[in-house]
Structures are given as C-alpha cells and as structure tokens.
C-alpha cells in the first residue's frame, strides 16, 4: 500500500494496492480527493455570484419576542383557522409557479452556459484565424514596402540617367552641327580649288 508521496498533509491519501492495481479505483480516489478540496478564496471571489441570481435568499424579519405580539399572533391564527384551507389553496399554485419558474431559469442558465462556451470556442477560432491572416498581411506589407523602396531608387536612377542622356544628346547635336559646317566649308574650298587654273 502506498500512502501517496504526492499527498498533501491535510488530504486523504491515495491508496494504491500494488498487488492488484485497479486504475478505476485510483482515479475514483483522485476525483474524490479533488471534490473534497475547498475552493480557494481567490477563485471563489473571482467566480463571484452569478449576476442573474441573488447571492442569497433575503432573510425574513426576526421575531422581536414580545409577549403581547405572541398573544396577538395566537389569536389571529385561531381566527384564521376556518379559512386555512383557502389560504393553502391560494399559496400552493404560487409555490408551483415558483418551482416552475426556477426550473425554467435553471434551464435557461444551462443553455446560456453552453452558448457562452460555444461563443468562446468560436471567438478563439476566429481570433486564431485573424492572427494568422494578420501575420500573412504583415509579411505582404513588408514585401510591398521593400518593392516601393526599390521602385523609388529605380525612378531616381532613371531620372539621373535620362538627364545625362539628354545632355549627351545636346552635345552630340552641337558636334553634328559643327561637323556639318566643317563639311560645308571643306566643300566650298574643294570647289574653289577645282576652279583654280593649273600651272
């Protein structure tokens, strides 16, 4: 037999019969032990009273113990005796109604609990999907930012290159114009030389 080395001092030890291990029995002991454990005050406080239920039933006013009042009560009861069945009849449906209402409320509470659990599950699912999508979008955004940076640098380089090309183009045009003029002069000279009589 084991007195349970993981047992707390103030708790029922879990007894294990090593000669005939019975898992069902061990688990039943574990469950009984958990059930016997008091709810920690911080957990109880955190759980708090249910908002749709009163924390406790309202107390009836305590008798003040006065002798006169007691005599009056006895007299009143004696007077009411003939109509007691009527009073009971009137009270009974109210009681049944109350029980029925409590049952309905309890059922509604259970449904609310299951709906809350479902909503929590759905929220968790949606949340994880959202995070996943956000992660993907973040990656895409980073890629797009990089692309924009590259495009910006490319545009800048293109402008510089185009300016250089334009200047070069102008210089070449001037060169061509000069060459044309040179060519023209040379032509004139050639013609003049041809006209000169040979000696």
């Amino acid at each position, binding site marked *: 037999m*084991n007195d*349970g*080395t*993981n047992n707390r001092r103030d708790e029922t030890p*879990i007894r*294990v019969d*090593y000669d005939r*291990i*019975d*898992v*069902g029995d*061990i*688990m039943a002991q*574990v*469950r009984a*032990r*958990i059930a016997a*454990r008091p709810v920690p005050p911080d957990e109880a406080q955190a759980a708090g009273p249910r908002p749709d239920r009163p924390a406790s039933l309202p107390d009836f006013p305590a008798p003040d113990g006065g002798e006169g009042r007691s005599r009056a009560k006895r007299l009143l009861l004696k007077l009411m005796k003939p109509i007691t069945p009527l009073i009971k009849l009137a009270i009974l449906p109210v009681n049944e109604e109350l029980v029925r209402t409590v049952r309905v409320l309890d059922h509604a509470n259970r449904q609310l609990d299951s709906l809350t659990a479902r909503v929590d599950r759905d929220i968790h699912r949606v949340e994880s999907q959202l995070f996943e999508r956000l992660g993907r979008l973040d990656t895409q955004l980073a890629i797009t930012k990089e692309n924009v940076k590259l495009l910006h640098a490319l545009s800048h380089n293109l402008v510089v290159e185009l300016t250089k090309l334009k200047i070069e183009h102008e210089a070449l045009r001037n060169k061509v114009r000069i060459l044309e003029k040179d060519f023209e002069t040379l032509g004139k000279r050639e013609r003049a030389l041809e006209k000169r009589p040979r000696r």
Partner: protein
Amino acid sequence: MKVAFVVQRYGLEVNGGAELHCRWVAEHLRKYFEVEVLTTRAADYVTWRNHYPEGVETVNGITVRRFPVARPRHPQRFGRIQEFVFHHEHGEEDELRWLEEEGPLAPALIDYIKGHRDDYDFFIFFSYRYYHSYWGIDAVREKSLLVPTAERDPVTNLRIFHELFRKPRALVYNSPEERAMINALAGNEAVPGDVVGVGTEVPADAAPERFRSRHGVEGEYIIYLGRIDENKGCRRLFDHFLRFKRETGSPVKLLLVGNSILRIPAHPDLLYMGFLPEEDKFDALAGAAALVMPSFYESLSMVTLEAWAMRRPVLANAQCEVLKGQCLRSNGGLFYENDEEFKEALGLLLADARLREILGENGRRYFDANYAWGIIEGKYLALLNSLRGT
C-alpha cells in the same frame, strides 16, 4: 484466397494512422493468402494531389495498383461544405457532395473494383469516411469488409455513413468503444464483426541513454508522440503541463516528438524534438516516465500500444472513450479530464516509481494478450474463413 486491401493512400512514406494500419495488416497477412492493394496516387492527405506514378508497383513484396485522383481537394470549398453539413439542416445530396469534396475522388478505382470483383475473394476497406469506402463497398457489398477506424467526431453523425455501416459483410473494429458507438449510431448489430485492432513491433534494444547523449536531454521527462496539433489536444496539454509545473514546482520535462502544426509555447521544459527516426523515437519512449496522450478522438492509439509494448505507463485524456477504456481494461495507465485531474494523476505517476513499473507491466500484458501480431492475424483469418464458409 485473394484479398484486396482498399485504402486512400499507400506507401512507405505514408505514416498516417489508418494507412499505416492497412500496410502492416496487409504485410502480415500476405503469408496466408495472395494480397493486393488498391489505392490512389495521392501522398498528401490535405489535397490528395497525384504524386505516385499510375499503374502497378511492388511495395515490400505486395502488388500495389494505383489509380489517379480525378480532382484534388479544394480545402476552402471543402471547409465551407463541411461547415454547412455539420451545423445546418441538410439532405443526403449535401452529404454526398461533402464526400465528393472530401475525396480522394478516384472514380477509376471504383470502376476497377466493379470490373474485377470476380478476381478477388474479399475486399478489405480501410477508413469509412472516404470516397473509396463509400462507393467501393456499394459496388461489392457481399465481398466487402470494413475497418472503419472511426472516432467520435461530427463525421460519424452523417446519415450516409449509418447506412454504410450496415452494408459490408463484416466489420473489423479497433476497440470495444468504437464497436459500441457504431452499433448505437447505425443499429448494425446484425453485421458480423470482431474487435481486432493492429499490432506493432518494438525494438528489443531500445537505449534511453543513447537518446539522452545524442539529444542532450537530462532529467526526468514525459513524452508525447505524434502530430503536434490542436485537434490532437496538444494546446490543452501545454496548458495542463505548464500549470502543473507552476503549481508543483516539479522539474519534469515534456518531450514533444513529431511534426508540429501548432505554435509551441516557449518554456525551458517543453522540449520540441521534431520528427525523429524510429530508433531515436523508441529510445526516447523507453526513457520516459510516461507517455501522455491528450487526444480527444482516437479509434485506436498506436503510440499507446507502443508505450505498453515497451512497458511504459500512459496518461490519457479521459474524454476520449477509447483511451479511457483501454486504460481501464489494461490497468496500464491513468487518465484525466481537467487540470486538477491532470495534476493529481501526473503527480502520482512521477512520485511513485513502483506504480509506474506495475502500470507498464500491466500494459505489456494487455498488449501481448490483445495486440501481438499472432493474435491479430488469427482474428483476421478466423473472420475471413467464417465468411468464406457461409
């Protein structure tokens, strides 16, 4: 006798539960009769995209005929249809549309079964939930056996499958819980069947020290083996384990072995090992204080059987009826339903080496009595011979 095993995927690289189960059973039964495998060209179970070449090949001595997947699965469209059939009022045509979208859509495989029904004595279909089983069993009802590998998930509530469970000549269940669930859903008690499951082989020379020195793992640890996935209960396992650590101050570590599709919380005692080779896996298992199995849905947990075959105790999720049932029948492991129970059960296991040892021994006895290959082969042979005689 010639038997065809029909399964959604098949190959040495395919290590999914039902597919591996099918391969092992086929390889063990080939010594008793002629065995062939009819399957698709898919390797990936998310899209079923054609991967293997079409035609006939031999895998570990077994003839495998592969048929093309006509259309890969479109995950988004499938997700939408699944959401509709799981949560809204719908008809049979919606469920059939879901089945077609789920795939693997291999009409050529069904045509082959129809055209060659006389070439085989029996067709053994694996996994009830796929296209090949639904239409294949419909084509060869009187020659078909179904290994459903069913878990208690929303798919079991689809009406087309209730009818399917009544169609085959026999059913081969993985556990009594699976049998009870299917009987309750389909009212198919009249269909013959047996609880068989699958065997496993573990190395005799597993060496925890080899694993510890190779991977630098020190101190006491518990182990999780399998895909690290929310659907396998891993997120809750992390919560339970971290709370256990916080409240008890125990130095124990949790080793996670397998491919992860879930973010693992950063904690020095949560050790993610990734996918390990078989030798390392068994070495790690041999050195673990216990195997923890947090899955909600299992038809038969093969890693649990491996743990028991290696005399390791198991800590299982009691919300999975199969795992809880196995623990109770074997007396080989404890189980939990919530944080408190996890804390108590794990605390008990870690504190009591003698208890761990006895639970491990009980697990091994349970494995030998129910899941040794001789037992599994005998059950298949008895079932097939009884069907042949009738």
